[in-house]
């Protein structure tokens, strides 16, 4: 298997977590990691009080990099002081949001960075047993991580009495088996308990209170745990200076789809706009093509239309909030503005589509994904995701009827907010936004006057057949 081409970081990148990714001569073994200052941050961390580390993470204002952007320090703060039950730490390496590809590179090329981040986090949270939940489709990644754990153990960074501090920690790699829902933290916990990954209802099952084996549990994304190591090194206040207030640090964004140079970039949060990312870093859309649509934060994020404009509130020179109108390409790559524009920064996966793409076809691909991945626990999602897929399937087969766009909107509106976990939103937002923003394309595919007869399996044949 040929090694993937190594990429040279773009000048507008600021590489912290990805500092060693694609570095010439950098290898995933511990000797290389130690030569490059590895485990020094752990040595510093064990001289600090655990609560002091938690405070640094709070001061850093680090927001979770898995998709929801929840402040990491706040999550950690949910663990009660003086907790008597065992506390568990789980690294969520179930990277499976379409459009997102960042954790793979950390795991394959710099696994010790993640292990060190996990050990520091476990020390801060008084955790003695941690699991690294990696998606089943990363068999090589699982082997690399197991090797890294064995090396860390042999060097006294893991196991009993770490660095002579009396602190014990075991980390085990746990492989998933192809279910997207395991990226949802309570689904992941169920899966780790050996069950179907049915997400738990919150309250009462907030992982920090009733998590793995009904004990307090912290679930963090790979990139988030790597950041913890850097926060210990530079201090929370220093980390918070990177990026913009409430959107601190760097984050890894991945661009895929119709751009000249797709790929991953580690950027200071908010330091560049969506337009700069697509045009400067990725070389823009392919020659002769025009930008049509952008999904800015993983497939679940609501789609932007290339000509959309937004009114957002920004701080003026005198500090007062003023309203400003911006286009899609002017949106800064941060959590808050992206949300203010009606979508989300999510997991950092940007999918770009040019004018050669059919939006019904695009949505149908996502609908297939969500219909396949719904865990089936809640009726609105199990039934709704399948029906949205069936409708777009039928529209593509030439059987679109006039009421289809309205039906799609209605089905999606009846899923979001009505399910146990956020998959309900994740599966309905694409349909909601595609239908609302590209009405003309859906209307073109939905011309037949006949209301859909049952059973649905026969719709496309029945509607496209002779004699109708």
């Amino acid at each position, binding site marked *: 298997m040929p090694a993937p081409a190594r990429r040279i970081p773009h000048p507008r990148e600021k590489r912290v977590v990805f500092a060693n990714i694609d570095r010439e001569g950098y290898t995933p073994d511990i000797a290389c990691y130690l030569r490059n200052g590895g485990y020094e941050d752990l040595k510093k961390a064990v001289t600090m009080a655990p609560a002091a580390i938690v405070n640094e993470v709070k001061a850093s204002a680090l927001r979770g990099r898995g998709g929801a952007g929840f402040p990491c320090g706040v999550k950690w703060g949910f663990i009660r002081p003086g907790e008597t039950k065992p506390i568990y730490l789980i690294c969520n390496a179930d990277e499976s949001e379409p459009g997102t590809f960042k954790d793979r590179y950390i795991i394959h090329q710099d696994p010790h960075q993640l292990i060190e981040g996990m050990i520091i986090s476990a020390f801060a949270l008084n955790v003695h047993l941690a699991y690294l939940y990696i998606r089943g489709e990363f068999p090589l990644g699982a082997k690399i991580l197991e090797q890294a754990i064995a090396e860390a153990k042999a060097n006294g960074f893991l196991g009993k009495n770490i660095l002579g501090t009396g602190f014990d920690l075991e980390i085990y790699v*746990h492989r998933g088996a192809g*279910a997207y829902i395991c990226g949802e933290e309570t689904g992941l916990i169920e*899966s780790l308990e050996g069950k*179907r990954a049915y997400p738990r209802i919150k309250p009462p099952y907030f992982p920090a209170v009733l998590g793995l084996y009904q004990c307090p549990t912290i679930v963090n994304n790979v990139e988030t745990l790597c950041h913890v190591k850097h926060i210990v090194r530079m201090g929370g206040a220093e980390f918070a200076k990177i990026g913009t207030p409430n959107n601190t640090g760097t984050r890894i964004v991945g661009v*895929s789809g119709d751009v000249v140079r797709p790929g991953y970039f580690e950027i200071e949060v908010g330091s560049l706009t969506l337009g700069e990312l697509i045009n400067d870093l990725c070389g823009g859309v392919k020659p002769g093509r025009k930008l049509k649509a952008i999904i800015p934060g993983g497939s679940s994020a609501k789609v932007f239309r290339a000509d959309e404009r937004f009114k957002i509130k920004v701080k003026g020179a005198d500090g007062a909030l003023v309203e400003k109108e911006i286009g899609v390409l002017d949106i800064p790559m941060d959590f808050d503005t992206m949300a203010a524009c009606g979508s989300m920064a999510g997991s950092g996966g940007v*999918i770009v589509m040019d004018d050669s793409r059919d939006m019904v076809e695009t949505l149908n*691909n996502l609908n297939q994904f969500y219909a396949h991945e719904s865990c089936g626990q809640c009726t609105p999602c199990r039934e709704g995701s399948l029906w949205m897929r069936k409708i777009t399937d039928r529209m593509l087969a030439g059987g679109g009827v006039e009421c289809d766009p309205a039906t799609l909107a209605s089905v999606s509106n009846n899923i979001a907010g009505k399910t146990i976990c956020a998959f309900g939103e994740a599966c309905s937002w694409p349909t909601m936004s595609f239908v609302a923003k590209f009405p003309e394309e859906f209307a073109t595919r939905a011309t037949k006057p006949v209301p859909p007869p049952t059973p649905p399996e026969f719709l496309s044949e029945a509607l496209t057949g002779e004699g109708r």
Partner: protein
Amino acid sequence: MQIPPELTAQIDEAISHYPVSKRSASLPLLHLFQEHFGYISEEAIVWIAEKLELQPIHILELVTFYPMFRRKPPGKNHIRVCKTLSCALAGAEELKTKLCAATGIACDGHGGCHNGHGDPVSVSADGQFSIESVECLASCGSGPVMMVNDDFYEAVTDAEIPTILSQYK
């Protein structure tokens, strides 16, 4: 069903990773069985359940839930082709069609070989290959991507297909 000593050792090691609950070892054991036998048989389900002091349904419900577990033997080499949006934009459907042609597997185009959970999909007549369309493999920037067994291939071009497949014959 013969469990060789190496597999027994791996099973015991896997169970030791879950000091709180043996049930947590269900997925790891299913992986070990599938790696060794190629798929999950009825016998395997009963064996794992007994080993972990569970009812067989507790294992069966995992096999039917998690898409990676197969209940039928795949080809000697199992190919997974990503079909999700970024790879689709990069030509995943064409890649799968070409792979089907190269391996002599019937492929119906739309949705193609995907027969649903737990089905190893069509196997080539010589038993060398099987192909499965899977959802996102998390390498969206270098689509179309595919896996042959545990090996990963990015930005696969038509020209590379014969070279890749020839390594597995």
